[in-house]
């Protein structure tokens, strides 16, 4: 028997060297992918933190004149974005009320009918819907709701546009989550003589709740920052509004308004910081839920 051929020392060294080189290349390149997020946060903190104080969360947007006077005196701009925060919450709340039941039911249907023709059609349409530019959803909601129902810009029109954006994520996450639950859990319920709909709503959905919540929260974080559809539907408002048939502000709409007003332009950074922080927060919660209540 021959002995195993010994590797030449210099070849070995070169291989180890290459291995190390590749290792550090992978690390540094993946570090680069995190750079944009870090740069964004640093920039927002640097420029925005000055404006953030209690009144930023408790007062509505200042008018141009107040801001101009404050700027001339070297003070920070008075007022805050409370009308935007409440507006965003209102619009997102109603978007959820529309999208969650529809999306969850559609997801259940897809799970139940994996391979039917109709399911394939729904799946394809869902995928396409995910790629529809948000401004088009704004145009559609404008046409449906603003023109025909509320006869004027309204929060609910914004909610409709955003709910359509949320739908694909909720449908898909519901389907995927239910698929992950072992079928024996379902069969255990059926074998106990429990009617199918009760097994679905009292065994399967609670078992997959973390997945559903994650999908919903990711959907929310996606629509929180949408501006284009809101420009054509909710329009914006300088006061706090809880009437869904009236024009309503939202944080991204305020950022757009501040951008267009030279006296208020400094508020962009703090508003962006808030929006970014909020979206990050929702995202982190979603990840936490997914991790903690993982399906066993």
């Amino acid at each position, binding site marked *: 028997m021959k002995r195993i051929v010994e590797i030449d020392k210099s070849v070995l060294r070169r291989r180890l060297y290459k291995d190390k080189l590749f290792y550090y290349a992978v690390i540094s390149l993946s570090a680069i992918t995190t750079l944009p997020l870090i740069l964004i946060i640093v920039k927002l903190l640097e420029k925005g933190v000055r404006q953030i104080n209690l009144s930023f969360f408790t007062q509505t947007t200042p008018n141009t004149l107040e801001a101009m006077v404050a700027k001339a005196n070297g003070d920070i701009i008075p007022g805050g974005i409370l009308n935007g925060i409440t507006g965003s919450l209102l619009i997102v709340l109603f978007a959820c009320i529309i999208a969650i039941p529809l999306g969850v039911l559609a997801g259940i249907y897809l799970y139940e009918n994996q391979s039917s023709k109709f399911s394939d059609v729904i799946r394809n349409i869902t995928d396409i819907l995910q790629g529809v530019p948000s401004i088009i959803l704004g145009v559609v909601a404008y046409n449906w709701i603003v023109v025909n129902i509320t006869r004027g810009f309204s929060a609910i029109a914004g909610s409709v546009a955003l709910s359509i954006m949320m739908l694909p994520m909720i449908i898909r996450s519901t389907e995927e989550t239910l698929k992950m639950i072992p079928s024996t859990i379902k069969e255990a319920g059926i074998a106990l003589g429990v009617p199918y709909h009760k097994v679905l709503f009292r*065994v399967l959905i609670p078992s997959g709740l973390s997945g559903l919540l994650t999908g919903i929260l990711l959907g929310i974080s996606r629509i929180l920052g949408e501006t284009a559809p809101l420009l054509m539907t909710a329009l914006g408002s300088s006061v706090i509004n809880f009437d869904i048939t009236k024009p309503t502000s939202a944080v991204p709409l305020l950022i757009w308004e501040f951008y267009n007003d030279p006296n208020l332009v400094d508020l962009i950074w703090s508003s962006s910081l808030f929006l970014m922080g909020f979206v990050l927060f929702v995202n982190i919660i979603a990840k936490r839920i997914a991790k903690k209540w993982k399906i066993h």
Partner: protein
Amino acid sequence: MEDTLMIKEEPVITFKNPVLLMEDLSVSYTEDALAVDNVSAGVKRNSITAIMGPSGCGKSTLLRAINRMHELYPNIKITGRIYLNNKDITSMNPILLRRKIGMVFQSPNPFPTMNIYDNVIAGFKLNGVRLKKIEKDEIVETSLREVALWDEVKDSLFKRGTFLSGGQQQRLCIARALAYKPDVILMDEPTSALDPVATSKIEDLLVKLKENFTIILVTHNMAQAARISDYSMFMYLGKLIEYGKTKNLFTRPVNKKTEEYLTGKFG
């Protein structure tokens, strides 16, 4: 009639007033192949009947026909009749039928969102049966005592069922099936996912349970069938090859295939 071998084409045993009676039962997943091929057999009350056979012989398929589990999957076709206490099961509401025929699965599957207490009474809870606290407590205690789990879990009734060991989880699942006081309990290889100690505990338990229940046990563990069952069926390629008293079947098999299987020539 009892214990007589009826020599038709295959040796099959018949009983007076069987709890379950299958007549010409066939089940198919695809159009061209029968997973269960024309099986006729009765099941004796308060006994353990084992269904043995190599993988893919149709034993689980047969079992799942009894509580109409196949109806969850619309492409499965069933022909023939099954009678539970002389009543055709297809004339019964499947939901009510499944309350009379409990089932225990291959791997333990307690409901992951429920605690031990709720898992035992899951049948009542999910069906919306309202029970008084005392009734619930009693059902939980007697069911858990029947599966010899009470002493182990009585201090942690409100912990999740999924925190128990595999063997304990499986006993919990048996308790869940017992809670409804079914006539028949179907068991689909209930110990195949368990270690020897947990397996022997469950086997002892099954022998005790037959006083009050009729158990049909699918197993591919011949030794298990020999240890605890009163009657055994041997299935091969969907057909019921031989059915008789376990003692007779293991010592004097009539069919050559049965003998080959029992002596380990295939399987």
